[in-house]
């Protein structure tokens, strides 16, 4: 089989989370879901707070990574995801995510009470992140 894999690197300020080849990368940009194969048109895209799924051509299970925003830089041969934080599904601390979810929900309730739009927006982002982590970890 022709080599259809390309290198995927996921970098965060706290280290490289993932650095392996994959055959397909599925992500959700701010516009919608899309998949990348080798030799896809080069693209730079902003990512949503969601999962990045890496397929390995039937060998082993997909690798699922929870990313908190960031962007992807793909030149056809090599994909680099640069995000503030990213976690492999297997490494997510479910309890911490649960706590974060509870805290975010409390903050939302509080912000709504005080009509603080800023705080509300921030808490909603926190909630989205926590939910994303929980969802991704549940898939593994």
């Amino acid at each position, binding site marked *: 089989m022709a080599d259809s894999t390309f290198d995927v690197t996921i970098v965060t300020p706290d280290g*490289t989370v993932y650095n392996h080849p994959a055959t397909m990368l599925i992500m959700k940009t701010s516009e919608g879901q899309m998949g990348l194969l080798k030799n896809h048109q080069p693209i730079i895209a902003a990512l949503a707070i969601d999962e990045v799924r890496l397929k390995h051509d039937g060998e082993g299970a997909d690798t699922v990574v929870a990313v908190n925003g960031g962007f992807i830089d793909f030149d056809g041969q090599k994909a680099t995801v640069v995000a*503030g934080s990213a976690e492999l599904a297997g490494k997510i601390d479910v309890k911490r995510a649960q706590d974060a979810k509870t805290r975010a929900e409390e903050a939302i309730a509080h912000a709504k009470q005080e009509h603080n739009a800023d705080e509300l927006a921030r808490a909603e982002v926190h909630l989205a992140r926590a939910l994303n982590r929980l969802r991704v970890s549940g898939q593994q």
Partner: protein
Amino acid sequence: MPASLAAVKRRLESTRNTRQITSAMQMVSTAKLNQIQGHIKTYEDYAARVKSVLASLVKSHNATLKNGVSDDKDHLGTLFTKRPVKKTGILVVTSDRGLVGSYNSNVIKATLDRMKKEGLTKENTVFLTVGRTGTEFFKKRGMNVVFESTGISDVPTYREVHGIVRGAVKMYADGIYDQLYLAYSHYVNRIVSHDRVELALPISAESLAMHEDHASKGPIGAEYDLEPDLSELISKLVPQFAESLIYGAILDAKTSEHASSANAMSSASDNADEIISTLQLQYNRARQAAITTEITEITGGMTAQE
């Protein structure tokens, strides 16, 4: 030397104990320094990628502007735009604890010098402080500390300082201040640190251009798909870049803190060594004197008995 044997011995032992503690602390600081240096490498990798992509986006943005509409930088968003400065924010990074030599006082002094130079006063400056020493210093002087953060771990993770980093960028965007300085100690090597007070926001064209040499790419070519469009992508990337800058400053300061703590502890150990050798000499002399006196007494007694 008149000091009594027991007194000298006690001092000698307590100095030895102190020396043991300082040399242990030196080793701890050195270990932390090594640890954080490993972490810095991964951060630099991240920061370099953010910078290079943003720089190429901005370049192609400027290129399209020249071909088309007016040369208006406002498209790049608030973080780039210079606006009249009414309030200044200063983010000061100091340590939580002492025993770090002149680390804290140097940073604070550099901050105050810069304030004087720029004509900043209590009234038109707000402070964001990381570390207890700086927080207490500025609060005690009645300065306006709007954000404080203490108890940051020895090797701060991005997640840990995300609050203050986000807050700093957001307060700028919200207009709480119109420019942001970062005051921290820049780590040069294990012996040398430089105090830096630098303008972080608004992002200057130079700070991006500075990194163009490292960026492998020029303006992003037409073959690139951009999603969403260029200016929106830039507006999403710019905060990420600003946050990575501030996080970098905090990391840099922490590194420098460990280095100066290791230095302070090593010179404390050296001093202790010096004191120990002086005391040891005193102790030996006092002991010798005691022995001599004893012998004189014994021989004196013997002579008396004969």
